[in-house]
């Protein structure tokens, strides 16, 4: 028996979350197989086959998988999942959309967002926005798990897996893909950036995010935001860090004008170093910050930019 990891990709490259899912699978132990469902996605298969610990890459190349719709992909994953002890995917929006559908087709539970593997049937996962960690044991014949990407290392390159093609395809007409708008940015992706600088309600409006961008450019950082800043319309939703946004754990997280609601802390408190700039010295963010600066961000940010130029 082996473990199946569902690859996340855009038909041309493997998304970083897959590397974390593969390393979680290796921790559980046993052969790791990766399933790539895509259209014209050979490059993804070749990337997955190079990951250390991967024994086999199953490749389902079919036009119906072009947009990774759960309605098409779930029956495929369930079909191959039957011959595995575990089915894993990264807990990204793609993984979260897909795996519960797979679990229901297999008539088993799904365990969301695992952060630790205790044994092959026991896992730790955060609940209540990370205010508690639950240890959960499953007696299902197949364990279907989404993996919190920040909790597991990246799988490394160095393997040579065999590639198996399948023509399994599920045409379904009830869901039609209409389009996708992805924000284009030269900056690193939030979930894989080593430095993140985030703005909150204290930024006052979207235009002021330019101040953050200038600092981010100096640091090679990604830009994030609190839910308050997203709700206020300062920045798009995909900037959101927190319980309902992205979970991040960079080397350095700089929170600017963010008060530190528990929902926001849930998304960033595993960062290695946290720095906070806020004019309110009572702001809860200071309770988790390694370095806190009580200051007016409109003065501090330009100064920070200048000091980083040296």
């Amino acid at each position: 028996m082996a473990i199946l990891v569902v690859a996340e990709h855009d038909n041309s490259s493997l998304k970083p979350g897959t590397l974390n899912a593969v390393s979680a699978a290796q921790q559980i132990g046993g052969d790791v197989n990766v399933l790539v469902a895509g259209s014209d996605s050979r490059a993804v298969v070749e990337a997955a086959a190079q990951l250390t610990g991967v024994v086999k890459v199953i490749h389902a190349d079919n036009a119906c998988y072009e947009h990774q719709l759960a309605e098409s992909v779930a029956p495929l994953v369930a079909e191959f999942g039957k011959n595995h002890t575990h089915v894993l995917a990264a807990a990204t929006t793609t993984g979260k959309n897909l795996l519960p559908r797979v679990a229901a087709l297999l008539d088993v539970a799904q365990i969301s967002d695992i952060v630790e593997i205790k044994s092959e049937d026991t896992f730790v996962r955060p609940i209540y926005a990370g205010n508690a960690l639950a240890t959960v044991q499953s007696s299902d014949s197949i364990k279907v798990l989404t993996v919190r990407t920040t909790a597991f290392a990246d799988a490394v390159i160095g393997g040579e897996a065999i590639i198996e093609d399948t023509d399994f395809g599920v045409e379904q007409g009830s869901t039609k893909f209409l389009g996708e708008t992805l924000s284009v940015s030269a900056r690193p992706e939030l979930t894989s950036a080593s430095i993140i600088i985030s703005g909150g309600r204290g930024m006052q409006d979207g235009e002021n995010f330019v101040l953050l961008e200038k600092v981010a450019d100096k640091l090679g950082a990604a830009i994030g935001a609190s839910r308050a800043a997203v709700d206020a319309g300062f920045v798009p939703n995909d900037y959101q860090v927190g319980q309902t946004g992205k979970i991040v754990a960079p080397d350095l997280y700089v929170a600017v004008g963010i008060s530190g609601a528990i929902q926001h802390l849930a998304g960033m408190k595993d960062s290695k170093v946290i720095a906070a700039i806020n004019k309110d010295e009572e702001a809860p963010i200071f309770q988790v910050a390694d370095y806190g600066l009580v200051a007016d961000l409109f003065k501090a940010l330009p100064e920070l930019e200048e000091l980083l130029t040296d």
Partner: protein
Amino acid sequence: MKILVGVKRVVDANVKVRVKSDGTGMDLANAKMAINPFCEIAVEEAIRMKEAGVADEIIAVSVGPQVCQEQIRTALALGSDRGILVETEGQTDPLAVAKIFKAIIEKEEIDLVILGKLSIDTDNNQVGQMLAALCNYPQGTFACSAEIKEGKVEVSREIDGGEQTVLLDLPAIVTTDLRLNEPRYASLPNIMKAKKKPIDIIQPSDLGVDISSNLKTLGIEAPAERSAGVKVESVAELVDKLRNEAKVI
């Protein structure tokens, strides 16, 4: 068109919850309870569809103990037409909840199901997707817009990096994300009127659903606390610390 909305009773989002000292669960004694915020958004979306004339009836369903009638009443006060409580004790697994919803969908001939994408207690994010699988329906998860168009529903979805738009045949399952709408408050006259709206109370066995679980929670513990560090006096000191002490820039 008939809409089913799910309403889950959870601890109020503003309550700071703590783990019980014996590690058996969360200390929720006397905590304020509320409709899960994402379910509230689901109820609001259904009401807006009814107000726009594309929906005829809204059924609010909750799975849990008797007291969940409070949250169903709130959904009725907001504008749902009737309620169903499927009575269970303790925690019910997402798969069992999905099976319960499936049985109700079949009985009530539902066209559209709107659920919260997750509940803020268990943070599972599963029921909508599982229900879609069991019914073999299309799913529009993490919706930031949902519009009925000629017997279909067009859903824009929050995805990592942006938005995706899909067109789903009805019946379909939609799960809500935060930006879908801003829920209204119930007015006092509507709260009074809601008291007369019917709530059916049924058992999972009435629907032929087995809610037994293969998951066992072995323990619940508080995460490692992060302690406050130092306050710096100036931006220059901050840069110095990050560069020379933490060595992260």
